[in-house]
């Protein structure tokens, strides 16, 4: 079953084509990462799926609903972290969660969610006293308090310190282990690589690549082999690392030499991402 199906999606703001011919599908229970530079069209795509923005063309199904005309249980089943939002500054963390919990038929336990997003110590503090990262955790908490089946996270960990980021990753993994579907946008490629079952790279309103992080890093760029010879750095890029490495090492062994500082590296997702988004820039 697909939680989300998108085909031929288009959206323009005046003359600006923010989303042009986007197709993808997300399985139930999948964590799907949407990557791309500023202005690529990620938020536009996500907000069309959430039901905020009207599409110009294309077919969209989210949990079986058309988000432009959703049925009554659509909003019971989705959780949303917007790229930007604030909450009532004078309410406490707990009160804010309790208000949101009251909107849903079968919410999660408020204190449990407050603890889950790491705000237990701040539960009775007013929202305006929270730090930026803590406010973002509040956004995450109120997205989860309704116990949604599908969670949209638009840059959920922006402003998090490294510990908070790890904690959020744990939480997103726990969502997956509960069988929830997650659509995540992020500019942190390590985050996408750590969390996503599949990622899509967006660029100027188009998806230029979709696949598992492993697929992207094995098929998109060549493997790098580095070593030092006579004090000079040698770099070989190849699609056939096994053969090249065998030749290099057997030649070295035959000469009785050591390949100093030998390294074999698969490109990181970041390098693939930069290559994908730069390539398009020239084209």
């Amino acid at each position: 079953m697909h939680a989300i199906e998108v085909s031929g999606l288009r959206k323009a703001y005046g003359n600006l084509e923010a989303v042009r011919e986007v197709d993808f599908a997300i399985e139930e229970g999948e964590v799907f990462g949407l990557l791309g530079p500023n202005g690529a069209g990620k938020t536009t795509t996500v907000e069309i799926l959430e039901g905020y923005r009207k599409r110009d063309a294309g077919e969209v199904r989210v949990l079986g609903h058309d988000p432009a005309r959703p049925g009554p249980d659509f909003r019971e089943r989705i959780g949303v972290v917007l790229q930007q939002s604030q909450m009532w500054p004078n309410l406490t963390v707990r009160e804010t969660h309790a208000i949101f919990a009251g909107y849903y038929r079968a919410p999660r336990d408020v204190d449990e969610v407050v603890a889950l997003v790491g705000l237990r110590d701040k539960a009775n503090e007013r929202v305006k006293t929270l730090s930026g990262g803590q406010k973002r955790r509040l956004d995450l908490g109120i997205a989860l308090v309704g116990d949604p089946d599908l969670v949209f996270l638009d840059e959920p960990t922006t402003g998090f310190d490294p510990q908070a980021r790890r904690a959020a990753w744990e939480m997103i993994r726990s969502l997956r282990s509960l069988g929830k579907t997650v659509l995540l946008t992020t500019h942190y490629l390590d985050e996408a690589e750590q969390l996503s079952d599949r990622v899509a790279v967006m660029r100027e309103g188009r998806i230029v690549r979709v696949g598992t992080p492993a697929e992207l890093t094995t098929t998109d760029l060549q493997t790098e082999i580095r070593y030092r010879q006579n004090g000079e750095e040698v770099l070989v890029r190849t699609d056939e690392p096994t053969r090249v490495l065998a030749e290099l090492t057997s030649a070295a062994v035959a000469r009785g030499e050591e390949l100093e500082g030998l390294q074999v590296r698969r490109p990181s997702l970041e390098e693939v991402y930069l290559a994908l988004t730069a390539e398009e820039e020239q084209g």
Partner: protein
Amino acid sequence: MSAEAIRVGMRRPARGLFVHQLRSEQLVFWRSREAAFFIFLFPLLLFVLLSSVYDGKIYGVPAPEALLAGLIGYGCANTAFAGLAIQLVIRRENGILKRLRATPLPPATYIASLLVSTLIVFAMQTVALFLLGRALNGTPFPSDVASLVAAVVIGAAVFAALGTAIASVIRSAEGSSAVVNAILLPMAFLSGSFGSTLHYPAFLRAVGDVLPLKYFIDLVNAVYLHGHGVWTQPQDLAVLAVWGAAGLVFTMFRFRWEPREP
């Protein structure tokens, strides 16, 4: 109980959501010191101040009684027009309205609870004005309570419609208070909230004559000062209805839930 049974068992009727949201609105309102002061307390302070400096008669009745009626008018515009508009603009620009749209809370339930919450604040303020007037100046309670309640509800509805309309026009949270007060204060002066307008120049009175607040204060005067029923004032009701309808129609076409794009 199975998980499914809990889900079904907890299915709440729409009325439950309305009550939940109404309580939330009241919590948000009273928790904000600025809102509680400027919206609820300020008209009460003005009444105490003005009724202690004016004496004699206004419109042929003791000054405190006329001022009490005028400040019910000011309180109505201050609460349902100015206060509501400022709160709505801030919530819209902060993204709170947008965020609420992603929850199962229906927009109509949200609006209804916000309006009823506003009415509660204004009704409490009106009661406080009567209690203060009685305690400080010996003003009487209204003789026709039903008519006064009807007037309060009508006034709150009309000014709330105008408040949502102006909130649809104001573009930034920072500017909202300035814009709204630039309308509210002159309107209150020209409509006679703070005393008789009989000695104003004719053109100022002419401006006052088209403003809704003048007709609301007329209505409260008729009910409170002269003991007439609210339905004996068709002219006031008609003007208020036109303003309210205009505000409503404007709101329906122009109201936005989302912040302006950065």
